[in-house]
């Protein structure tokens, strides 16, 4: 299956820069999630690869072959949208055999392809069902079977789980990934759901305003975000703004009211104005012991595995923390707690040019 490369792609729709020097490299057989907020250019990237949209500038390769001039139907790339686009008046079997490459096959070969596909997507018992008689998960598998029956090598998934219930979405994640991986397809999966990307991707590419801002494994993107935006978009973060006052085994940052915190060493100098980001799940709170500063518990929400605690920190603002739910009842609104984190869980960034609020916008 082909490796896919996008080089310096520019695509404008009027004033909107849907692709703004977009570079992306998807390996042969890789499952890559393109993650970003609404309007970041995710769907445009998919359509550029499928050939449905032509770039204003830049080049697209499948393997070593330039694709800019290749028609969509000759790319062996298939796009699966949020709504699956099955023909409502055709059965599962008829939908699967609808693809252009299949019509010319002999009856025997058609039968064989159909059986292989039904087996693969676990629909052997339902070839005669109509789409409306199927569950959401089955409809999705039918659409996938149709795509694969037409010999696709590249799978382009546009928020494939969005139309499903939240709980079902979680249980279908592994199924969809395993299917794509077992067939060795090169897959680009577009999503706005960071947890979905973490769970499904070999690598995640974070996109914003038409450009890729970070590519890495789920662990790299979560633990080593490239910007405050990524830190907050992939798992919520707390932020601390101040000046670097010391650099030793950890970086010490102090704010205008005299609080100071520790973070991992980073590329900044003493005196620099910086932003420290730490994930809410790595923000520790306790009534006793030491802390960088104190906050007042505003509320405690039970979320199952974790408690979500909102804190009000004087002069700094609102912080959140996720702690194991066995601590329920040990923290009450109004309690004053110490807030801290281990230095290696916090990352330092230069102060964004347009300010932190603008940097963190998720829409």
């Amino acid at each position, binding site marked *: 299956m082909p490796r896919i490369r996008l080089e310096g792609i520019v695509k404008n729709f009027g004033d909107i820069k849907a692709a703004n020097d977009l570079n992306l490299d998807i390996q042969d057989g890789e499952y890559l999630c393109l993650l970003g907020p609404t309007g970041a250019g995710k769907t445009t990237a998919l359509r550029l690869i499928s050939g449905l949209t032509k770039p204003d500038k830049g080049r697209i390769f499948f393997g070593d072959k330039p694709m800019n001039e290749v028609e969509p139907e000759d790319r062996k790339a298939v796009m699966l949208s949020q709504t699956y686009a099955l023909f409502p008046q055709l059965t599962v079997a008829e939908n699967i055999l609808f693809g252009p490459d299949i019509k010319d096959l002999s009856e025997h070969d058609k039968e064989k392809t159909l059986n292989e596909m039904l087996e693969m997507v676990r629909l052997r018992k339902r070839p005669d069902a109509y789409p409306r008689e199927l*569950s959401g998960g089955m409809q999705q598998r039918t659409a996938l079977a149709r795509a694969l029956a037409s010999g696709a090598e590249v799978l382009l998934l546009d928020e494939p789980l969005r139309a499903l219930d*939240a709980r*079902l979405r979680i249980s279908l994640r592994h199924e969809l990934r395993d299917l794509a991986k077992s067939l060795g397809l090169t897959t680009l999966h577009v999503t706005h759901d960071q947890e979905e990307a973490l*769970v499904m991707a070999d690598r995640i590419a974070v996109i914003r305003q038409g450009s890729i801002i970070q590519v890495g494994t789920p662990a790299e993107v979560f633990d080593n975000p490239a910007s405050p935006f990524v830190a907050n978009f992939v798992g*919520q973060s707390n932020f601390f703004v101040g000046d670097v006052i010391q650099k030793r085994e950890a970086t010490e940052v102090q704010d205008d009211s005299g609080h100071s915190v520790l973070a991992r060493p980073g590329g900044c100098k003493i005196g620099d104005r910086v932003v420290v980001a730490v994930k809410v799940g790595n923000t520790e709170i306790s009534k006793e012991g030491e802390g960088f500063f104190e906050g007042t518990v505003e509320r405690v929400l*039970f979320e199952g595995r974790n408690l979500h605690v909102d804190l009000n920190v004087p002069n700094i603002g609102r912080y959140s923390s996720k702690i*194991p739910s066995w601590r329920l009842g040990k923290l009450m609104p109004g309690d004053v707690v110490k807030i801290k984190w281990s230095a290696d869980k916090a990352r330092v960034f230069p102060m964004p040019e347009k300010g932190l609020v603008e940097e963190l916008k*998720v829409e």
Partner: protein
Amino acid sequence: MPQVELRNITMRFGKVVAADEVDLIIADGEYVTILGPSGCGKTTLIRIIAGILEPTQGEVLIGGKNMKGVPIEERDLGYVFQNIALFPHFTVQRNVTYGPMVKDRGKDEQRQTAQKYLELVKLLDKMQMFPSELCGGEQQKASLARALATDAKLLLLDEPLSALDARVRVDLRYELRRIVKRLGLTAVHVTHDQEEAMSVSDRIVVMRAGGIVESGTPQQLYTRPKDIFTSNFVGETNLLEGWVKERAEGRSVIELRDESTIVVEQCDFDEGDAVVVSVRPEFVFPFTDGLLSKIEYFTYMGTYWRVTAEAQSEDMVEFDVPAAEGKLYHPGQEIYLMINRKAAVVFPRPKEGIAEAVKLE
């Protein structure tokens, strides 16, 4: 004050029974979420409360008054739709003052009301904009402000966050609860998202196939679900099939298919009964002894790794290890898994089979 009471509500659409003799009381000031998969009847129920649908049978009481024949605009409630329903040619401010205006409130009062609620949803600086100039989360906040501006004490939220991006949804759900609680409203919120339900609710009502499965606080449903469907729907869980081998106060033994055993604290069934043990991934841990299992794969969840293993009993078991300890394990490795006996919940083995009993669609 608005207590909402549903008495024996049934709703039929042709052959489909969307609500089947539902009884439910929502207390004044309570934030209740109706949670269930697509097609369970949750939207029908909230529409019946609103008066958009007239039930086939049964009664709706709001604040003790029977609502039969009372149209939506006279039920004194605010309603927020999934698909943001703002007037596109009105500014945000005019959208919010619409309710007070049709109620013939004075100009000053209209302005003050809009001001108050737009401030609450943090949209004061955008009140002169048109809906199309706002992003999705802001549009939904404006819809909320408009629903609140009716000054109704009952707020109905029909999948209010479903149309938004995942990240925006998370921020907004905390806001939603904060606002409802600050204003002391009674809220009924419909959703299929169990995480959202847990974050916003005082109480969750789990629905399936037109009926109520059970209701309880988020903590009750997560830690002590009464029904096997709830155990799987509200949070993820491991379901292990077996029989009660020994029953004793505070320490019962369940035998699994390969004759391995697990100990649970609470078991309400007799020796020999077929049961299913539900235990959440965070309450399973590697130990020197326990269920012999083979690790299949790992998933990075940010602050922890979720590990999927197959036990010798052929049950799939998921468990969590801290992010820093991920390196200690690898696929193919054989380990022993122990179950926190206090966290295990025992259900009777469903006649229709586990898969059918917990089916999500």
